[in-house]
Every structure is written in structure tokens, then in C-alpha cells.
């Protein structure tokens, strides 16, 4: 499985990417595989406040529903409207077209609390045991 090194990862399987003054959020390849075919995403509203590690939206497959936890605190600036029509993007391109939303962080240093790709892979191999 692919975990790009330029991203930061949360223990709850979200990724975060700094893009100028905002942070883009999605779920990892591992998470999309666990979910199987995504059928629906309940996206956050624009301007909704986020808090690090607090549930912010929900992603559903046919047989499961998972909360998505905000990797950083801040304010939602944009969400991926394409997911409404084509939630399968999350399965096909989790780090690209399948992004969830972007946030203006209230404290960029929160990113340091997240995991690197190596640390995240380690976490996954521990969970598998």
C-alpha cells in the first residue's frame, strides 16, 4: 500500500497535507480498503469549526459507517463537492481526487502531533498483529 511521504497521518487513518495556508484532508489507502466501496460521505459545512481528533464527518460503505476525525483544529474552507456525485473517487484516488475537505488551521504546529508515513506504516503493522 502507498503512503506518500509528503503527507502526515493520524491514528484514525486520515491524512493531512499542507497546501499554502490551508490543510487538505482525506483518508488513507488502508482506510478506503477497509471500508470497501464508499457509497456516501456526509461532508462538513463550509466555515464549520474543527477540533483536532474530534469527529467532523461520516463516510459510509454498504456495510459500515466511520467517523472522520479532524487531523487539525481550524475552520473548514472548502469541501470536495465531487464526492456527492461520485463517492467512488475515495476508493480510486484516496490521496488526490478523493480528498474530503480543507481547513484553515488555527494552530499549524498541531501537524507535529501527527505521524509520518513510516510511523503510520508501523502503526498498521502493529494493529495487524
Amino acid at each position, binding site marked *: 500500500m502507498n503512503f506518500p511521504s509528503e503527507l502526515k497521518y493520524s491514528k484514525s487513518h486520515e491524512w493531512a497535507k499542507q497546501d499554502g495556508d490551508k490543510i487538505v484532508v482525506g483518508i488513507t489507502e488502508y482506510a478506503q480498503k477497509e471500508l470497501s*466501496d464508499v*457509497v*456516501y460521505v456526509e461532508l462538513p*459545512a463550509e466555515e464549520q469549526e474543527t477540533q483536532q481528533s474530534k469527529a467532523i464527518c461520516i463516510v459510509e460503505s*454498504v*456495510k459500515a459507517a466511520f467517523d472522520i476525525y479532524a487531523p487539525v483544529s481550524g475552520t473548514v474552507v472548502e469541501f470536495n463537492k465531487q464526492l*456527492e*456525485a461520485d463517492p467512488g473517487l475515495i476508493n480510486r484516488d484516496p490521496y488526490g481526487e478523493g480528498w474530503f475537505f480543507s481547513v484553515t488551521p488555527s494552530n499549524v504546529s498541531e501537524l507535529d502531533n501527527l505521524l509520518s508515513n513510516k510511523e503510520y506504516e508501523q502503526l498498521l503493522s502493529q494493529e495487524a498483529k
Partner: protein
Amino acid sequence: MNKETPLVYELSQEGKKGFSLPHSHFDSSDISKLVPESLMRDPEMDLPSVSEPELVRHYVNLSQKNFSVDTNFYPLGSCTMKYNPKINEDAARFDGFANIHPLQPEDSLQGIMKLLFDLESSLKEITGMDRFTLQPAAGAHGELCGMMLVKSYHEARGDMKRKNVLVPDSSHGTNPASAALFGFNVVEVKSDERGRVDLAHLKSLINDETACLMLTNPNTIGLFEDDIQQIQKAIHDVGGLLYYDGANMNALLGIARPGDMGFDIVHLNLHKTFSTPHGGGGPGAGPVGVKKHLIPYLPTPLVKEEKGVYSWDEDIPDSIGKLRAFLGNIGVLVRAYVYIAHLGREGLKQVSQDAIINANYLKKKIEEHFTVPFPGFCMHEFVAQAVKQNDLGVHATDIAKRLLDFGIHAPTIYFPLIVAEAMMIEPTETESKATLDQFVKVMLTIADEAVEFPERLHEAPFTLAISRPDEVKAARNPILTYKDYRASKDNNGSSSISTTGVPVHAG
């Protein structure tokens, strides 16, 4: 193979009708003169016009696409798919039960009130509880009622901080959902390596914030919680209550009683243990029984008897209130009454004994081929795992689907959540040994097939009206009405539904 049945809409033809109604002999002036225009409906609404013989054939044809207890072995674990006696159906349809109004004077309802009172007495005796409300319409409705009673009980004692409801990780989904719906905080208790509540973990979770523990016994794995006396002591010692999910009561009739185990509140699923039909998903009935200290909080009304005269007792000042309109799912209660009256004390006992014998017999016969995760005798149901098959690429769902080809309904699969590749099997007492032996034969055949051609099992079932439905498609672009269907055809199969228009989050 395509055995599509047209939608009733597709049978519709202008000029046909399926009704026969009386002529009105009242004021025949134009309706538009009597009803204000702003209230009046445009008479064009899309309901079908079909003749009665065509309708009968339509619905009978549809019925034949169902598996049911009347036509198939239905070992669906946790659901107690037992035979639904026919006399129950006759009784519920008696004119004096079916055609009575809840607001009739009490003296015109003495027969049904006596029946309800006597049913309550039987349920009290069977469970060892002190009083029952017959109002809840289903098990989950009973659970919600139970959560309300728990809250009222603690608050009446000025004990306001009890916010936690504990549920085992093997519990039915309704347990945590009911507790959360009523504002409780749900705390999950782990199961131990014996498939029972982990007593040490439980003890580490309970304190003066514990409102109650919800427990199914035997649990969803079909095992008796043999530490129940220690569990009840631990919960009561911290001032919490013990709630009994009666989904598995079919294992205990005449053997043991939740009331004696220390449970404070009990719900029963009359549509499981007491044979009222599942109806394709309902109606059920979920009466809730309580010990003395919780009687003051029961919903209104209860049935009261004085010198052979029955009345509704509305005077319950601390009652939690009403859970629904009127009195309960009376037609279901009538069926349960008849069931108990036919079996009597000996028969009820035999029900649970046979249910337990049947389950253990099946377990023994298949455990060589399908892994049984917990050793020892089970109660009325057991969980097997498609673990060996999983190594071959065959999953519980494939086995479930393949069973359908042999005319056997699938067991409950992937539940409880703590057991991988779970198949929960509950034969019930109303199946013969010959049926059980046939099931065993089929299961062993499928075990062989899993070795010989695992790929093929992914395609099962082969012999039914349809093959596996595309659930992803159904959930991504929901078609929930005939109108949606027509729109989707107009759009040439593209997405028919837009969820825009109203914000997903208002406010």
C-alpha cells in the same frame, strides 16, 4: 434466469379497478363547493388501477419469492424463527378482538382486558418479575422504555450523575442505540476468551456514574453468562441497575428466570420466544417487566383488576409517560396469550429443552467442518466460523448464499461483531430431527464445495429468482419509489437523485 415480477404500477390500466365501495347518499353537490380550493387536492395522483384477480395473482406471485418459516428451515440466529401456530392467527382475527376501539367504555372491553391481565400474570411468572407494561411495540421499543425507567429511578433518588450505560461488545446493536437515543453515554464491556462478559473489565468500568448494564443471557453467542451472580452483585454494589435483553429467552422457559438472577428490568420479544409471526419485519411486541422498586415509573396505563372487574389504571404519578398512542400491539399480545395457554407449564419447559437439544445437536454435527470458537455446550443457539473456508477464499456470506440454493435460509452472519466470519445458527424447537440432519448434510456438502470450487461459491445462489444484488449501486443512487425509477429511466440510468436543495447541516 429472469423471474422479474412487474411492479403493481406496471399492471395499471385506466378503466380497471380493484375496489367495490358503497354509493354515497349524502349531499351530492359539487365537492369544490364544499371544500375550500386552497385545501383541495388535484385528483390526479399516481396510484395504480388494477382489477382484483390481477392483484391477487401479483401479490401471491410475490409471496412465492420469499423464504419463510412455513416453507423453509430458517435457522436465523438471534431471531428465533419458530413455527407460528395457526390458531393464534384465528384468535387475533376474532371479531371481538379485531373490531374494538381503544376508547370504548371499559365495561365493553372486559374480555380483552382480562386477556391482557392474564398474559401479564404469565409473563411475570415466566420471568420472575413483579409487573409488566404491555405497551412497547418491539424489542428496541422495550429497551427504550427500560432506559427511561432507569433514568427515572435514579433521578427520583436524587442520584443525578448516572450517565453511563454498559453494554457487552457482543450485544445487539439496538442496546447501544437505545441507550444513546435517550442521552446515555455508552460504555462497551469486553468479552473474555470464554465468550462471556469479562468480569475484571466490567469491574474496572463501573462506579457511581453507572446507570445500568444491559445484558442478554444466554448471550448472543448462545452461551449462558455463568458469572451472572457476581455480575449482578458488582452492578448493584455500585448502585446501578441490571437490564435483561430478552432476545434469547427461548433458552430459559421453565429452566431459569431473569428475575431470580437479579435483573431489575426485562424486555421480552413476543415475536421471538412467544411465537408471534415476524411478518417480514414486524409487528412485534416488547413487553417490559420490572421489579417492585421500578413499578412507580411504568408507562400508563396498566390493567387493574378488582373483584373480577378490569379497568385501566391511569393514576401513576411518577410514570415515564406514554411510549405510543393507546395501549400496545394488542393483536400480537392475543397471539402470545394463546401460545402460552396451549403449551402450559409442561409445554413451555419442553420448548426450551428441545431448542437447546436441537442447537447442541447441530453444533456437534458440524463443528468438525466449521470452527466453533467457544467450547462446551451451548444453549438455544451457537456461533460457528467460516475460518477454514476463509483460507480457501470462501466467506460466511458465500456459505449463507449457497444455503439458499438448498432451500435453507441463511444463518445470521457477521454477528456478533467480535467473532470473525461468524454464522449464528438457531434451529428452534419446532424443527424435526430429519430437518436438522438434512441441514447438516447440506453444510457438509458446502464445506466440500469450498474445497473443490471456491470460486463458484462467490456466485451463489444459482437457483433463485435473482442473483446477488448490487448493493453499492443501490446505496450510491437510491431508487426508493416508482417515481425515482421512472426518473432514472428517463435519465438513461444516470443518477436520479440529487441531495442538494436543502443544506445537509442547517443552523
